């Protein structure tokens, strides 16, 4: 008896923590997964928006010329660690960047930094330089967020919320991890039997519960991975800070080289580098070594610039579809260009690999469209698990004993559904906007984001006044379905890249996004028209509805075969 009491206690405690943590993070988590599932296709969406084709890595960049531009601007390059590279994108650019110098005096000339003018020459910079004309576009980093894909990406970790946004996202991911583990514990004893249960004709609460548990179990590995990696990306500061303070005594350089083995750490020699190898020639010979591989990007890192022990590291990222571990690097001594250290593509030490595994898993960078498609589906399933979780919470409170809070609960549910389904609608609307508003408009992107948020907020307000969950869902799906079908049409009118023309012309991204929206729009409309408000209300409270464990439901369970199709409809009715 005591054993049973204990089990009941554990069950109820974990059930409660699962509910509380789940409800608290629900809206945030929904935004993470929903916007994030679009952000998987960030580059595709950006190229679709700008009607461009994926660019290749440029091998003809004159880094010496870029360095000379920085020097001409009055920065003292001696002793610096300098990063250089080329960024492909809508506006490709060469970057040359360095953090502020932390030294008292120039180690080569021995001159002390003291006056006001010197403080500029030792400060940090981020030069963005045009790759064809070598004009300086900017002396500090300007984040290029003014594209639809990039904006959805930023939205998925709440960057629009100033400063704290990403930390909120990190904590949402952390509590998501807590919620999925408690969820599995609560569900453990019935994990197999309930997996094959789908009581479609029983009460609405049974329907939500079965959908929540079965789809939740299917998505567990995926969700666990995203909870951990998402928490890391949001709270990476929390990961590194204690080790930095307690083990490395605040010395960032030392710590960085143990996380990134391609960054070495050498004392400055204090002697002038008299003659050095040409960086462009070194780049050329490095790229020649990688000749048979498809190079996505190369990063250059020079340490102790102008010191006699200056070194340069080339880190290359190879295309991820053929190599899961896609990073290789070589370190050369800059004085004579001899190779000091090398990591071939096939040798992957534990240190340094963890981060690339995390990155590959989180950004689905390892299997092309197929893996991204599966990620998208699983993300949609997760969105459905989140919504159904809240629906269970609400349905469980449609009882006499919660009568006094009925009004409040109804409003919470309506606003919740308005926010979730409104996001789908607003994203579809955002896609349309990019093809409607004229390109030469002033503040075009700000207007678009303002309209996106107004639309989203507007739908939530509508939901608040409507209070009819079925209507809120159905109307959002109908509208989003129609907008989804309109998107490829608008793109065709706007750019002439109709999806039957874009593929032969080589506009893969344009074709992919158009067709995806078309399919998504059609599925959404079918789901909307198939959905019917036929569910019975929860029966009044009785003994059989309390949460003692091990109790069997009195409602007959449908067989697996008969319910195959309704599961799909129920799932897709929430947003695929």
């Amino acid at each position, binding site marked *: 008896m005591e054993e049973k009491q204990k089990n009941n206690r554990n069950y109820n405690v974990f059930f409660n923590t699962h509910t509380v943590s789940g409800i608290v993070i629900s809206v945030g988590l929904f935004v993470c997964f929903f916007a994030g599932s679009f952000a998987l296709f960030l580059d595709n969406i950006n190229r679709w928006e700008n009607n461009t084709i994926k660019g290749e890595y440029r091998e003809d960049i004159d880094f010496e010329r870029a360095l000379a531009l920085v020097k001409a601007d009055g920065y003292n390059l001696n002793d610096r660690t300098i990063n250089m590279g080329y960024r492909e994108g809508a506006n490709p650019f060469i970057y040359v960047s360095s953090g502020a110098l932390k030294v008292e005096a120039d180690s080569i000339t021995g001159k002390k930094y003291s006056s006001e003018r010197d403080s500029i020459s030792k400060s940090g910079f981020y030069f963005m330089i045009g790759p064809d004309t070598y004009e300086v576009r900017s002396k500090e980093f300007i984040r290029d967020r003014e594209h639809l894909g990039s904006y959805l990406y930023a939205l998925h970790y709440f960057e629009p919320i100033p400063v704290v946004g990403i930390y909120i996202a990190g904590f949402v991911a952390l509590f998501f*991890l807590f919620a999925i583990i408690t969820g599995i514990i609560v569900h453990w004893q019935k994990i197999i039997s309930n997996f094959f249960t789908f009581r479609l004709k029983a009460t609405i609460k049974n329907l939500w519960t079965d959908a929540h548990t079965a789809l939740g179990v299917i998505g567990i590995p995926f969700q666990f991975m995203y909870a951990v990696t998402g928490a890391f990306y949001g709270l990476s500061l929390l990961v590194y800070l204690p080790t930095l303070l307690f083990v490395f005594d605040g010395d960032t350089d030392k710590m960085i080289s143990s996380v990134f083995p391609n960054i070495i750490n050498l004392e400055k020699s204090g002697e002038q580098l008299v003659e050095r190898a040409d960086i462009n020639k070194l780049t050329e010979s490095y790229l020649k070594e990688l000749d048979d591989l498809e190079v996505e990007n190369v990063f250059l890192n020079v340490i102790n610039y102008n010191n006699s022990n200056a070194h340069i590291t080339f880190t290359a990222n190879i295309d991820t579809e053929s190599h899961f571990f896609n990073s290789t690097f070589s370190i050369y001594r800059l004085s004579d260009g001899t190779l000091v250290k090398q990591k071939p593509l096939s040798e992957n030490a534990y240190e340094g690999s963890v981060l690339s595994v995390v990155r590959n898993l989180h950004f689905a960078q390892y299997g092309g469209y197929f893996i991204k498609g599966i990620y998208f589906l699983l993300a949609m399933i997760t969105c459905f698990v989140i919504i159904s979780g809240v629906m269970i919470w609400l349905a469980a409170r449609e009882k006499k004993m919660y009568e006094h809070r009925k009004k409040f609960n109804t409003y919470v549910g309506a606003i919740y559904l308005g926010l979730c389904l409104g996001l789908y609608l607003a994203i579809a609307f955002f896609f349309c906007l990019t093809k409607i508003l004229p390109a030469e408009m002033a503040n075009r992107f700000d207007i678009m984001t303002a309209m996106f948020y107004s639309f989203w907020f507007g739908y939530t307000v509508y939901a608040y006044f409507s209070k009819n969950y079925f209507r809120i869902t159905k109307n959002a799906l109908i509208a989003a379905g129609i907008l989804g079908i309109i998107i490829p049409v608008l793109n065709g009118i706007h750019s002439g890249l109709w999806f039957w023309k874009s593929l032969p012309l080589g506009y893969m991204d344009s074709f992919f996004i158009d067709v995806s929206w078309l399919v998504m729009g059609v599925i959404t409309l079918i789901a909307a028209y198939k959905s019917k408000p036929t569910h019975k209300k929860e029966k009044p409270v009785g003994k059989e509805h309390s949460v003692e464990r091990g109790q069997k439901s009195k409602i007959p369970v449908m067989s697996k075969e008969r319910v195959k199709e309704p599961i799909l409809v129920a799932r897709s009715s929430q947003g695929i």
Partner: protein
Amino acid sequence: MPANRKYLIQSGWTRFSKVMAAILGSLLATYALHIALGYLLDISVILNTSIYSIFIVWVAFMMMVYWIKKAWKSWAILALTIAVSSIVIYAGKTGMI
């Protein structure tokens, strides 16, 4: 079917104490454990592992806090973890290991 109230904590203070133990106490214990292991084993391996293990261990401590009925018992376990780890860290810092 909200959880049965009779099994949940009623007192506001105990609840607050549990939340603090779950979030703050667990985080500190996780940190201490990781840094101590870093001194015992290889710091760069532990640092790379902590990219994912920090969150898993943190959540495991959170679960422990809610699993153990009495809040003071969970605090005691967390404090013990921190204390033992601190001794290891101290030994590591002063070069004894």
